[in-house]
């Protein structure tokens, strides 16, 4: 199956690891990811304000383009997924936003929210199947205790994202099992890492991340995985300076590629 792939800004630069392993792993699993031509940055944060139209347009361009190509739109970065999925929902449910967006963009065919937005993890679960990963695992991570870090953006708000149970998600744990490792549940896996506040108040973000990592360490994890470059920065670089709390953080695609031995 072929998806239109939306990498997003950071995956071309600071989060190349997230991107490249995702592409390679998909190929190995028989999924074709075709990069959406001329995609633009999604804006990184969802414009909550209802009267913001311009900041929604780049997402709509990507969505409409995928629609025109007859494909589902696959995202990888949590922030991109959050923004694009929610803007798509706005178009589907809010007449005013839909009308204004179509007036601004004046596309050949009006965009009415037809595109399905799929996160890479959802693709692994629903299209590939975690069992297939388990079968194709060349170097399973047997014995490793891995904590899934979901963060906020994949899960909330659940009535739009519909990703998983927002307070007790399981998709990453199932993924970890498919890698042959043991998933470790810890209560702060869906608490915020601080996000963009890191730009303005590094300490606040660091404090939040410390709650997360110590909660995970208390459950004796070997490593954490994430799907978001900003979470990675906050958890890994902004916080993890002291040697004693050094907890390896990986993008989930890195481990996937490693297990598939790519």
């Amino acid at each position, binding site marked *: 199956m072929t998806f239109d792939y939306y990498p997003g800004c950071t995956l071309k630069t600071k989060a190349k690891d997230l991107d490249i392993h995702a592409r390679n792993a998909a190929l190995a699993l028989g999924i074709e990811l075709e990069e959406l031509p001329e995609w633009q940055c999604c804006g*990184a944060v969802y414009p*909550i304000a209802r009267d913001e139209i311009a*900041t929604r347009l780049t997402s709509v361009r990507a969505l409409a383009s995928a629609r025109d190509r007859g494909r589902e739109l696959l995202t990888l970065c949590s922030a991109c997924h959050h923004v694009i999925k929610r803007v798509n929902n706005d178009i589907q449910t809010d007449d005013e936003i839909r009308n204004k967006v179509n007036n601004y963009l004046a596309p050949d065919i009006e965009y009415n929210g037809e595109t399905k937005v799929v996160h890479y993890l959802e693709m692994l679960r629903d299209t590939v199947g975690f069992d297939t990963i388990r079968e194709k695992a060349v170097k399973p991570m047997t014995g490793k205790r891995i904590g899934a870090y979901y963060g*906020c953006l994949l899960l*909330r708000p659940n009535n739009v994202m519909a990703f998983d149970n927002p307070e007790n998600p399981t998709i990453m744990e199932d993924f970890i099992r498919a890698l042959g490792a043991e998933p470790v549940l810890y209560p702060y896996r869906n608490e915020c890492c601080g996000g*963009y506040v890191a730009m303005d108040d590094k300490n606040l973000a660091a404090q939040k991340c410390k709650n997360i990592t110590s909660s995970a360490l208390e459950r004796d994890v070997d490593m954490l995985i994430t799907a978001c470059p900003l979470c990675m920065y906050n958890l890994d670089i902004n916080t993890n300076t002291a040697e004693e709390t050094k907890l390896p953080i990986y993008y989930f695609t890195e481990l996937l590629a490693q297990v598939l031995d790519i």
Partner: protein
Amino acid sequence: MHQKTQLQAETIRLISGTNTRKCMKCGKCTASCPAFAEMDISPHKFVSMVEHGEIDKLMASKSIWKCMSCFACVERCPRGVEPASIIEAVRQTVIRKQNNNYLRPENIPELLDPKIPQQALVSAFRKYSK
């Protein structure tokens, strides 16, 4: 309520798209907020202060720069009030005024560390500037 404050409150309701009257004052937003320690006005007060038209106080609040838009309050609110949307609406009301940006391009070099992803930069500009 004064006409001006009434208009201000109405604007906040419009931008946020949420109905503050639905709040039953349970405080689950404040109970959920991960940035609470840094806030001078707690999330539940945002809701009631919009109701009372105290928008100027909210606009001067430090809380609007500390909210991380993690949507924990939105997800857990039993009445669908969305405090995060109200905080966003106040933040927008502030930065949409001329020369009122919280983050300016000239501040960037000192904030930059080489490993910071541009996602953080883009997000911060979207949240703190217009």
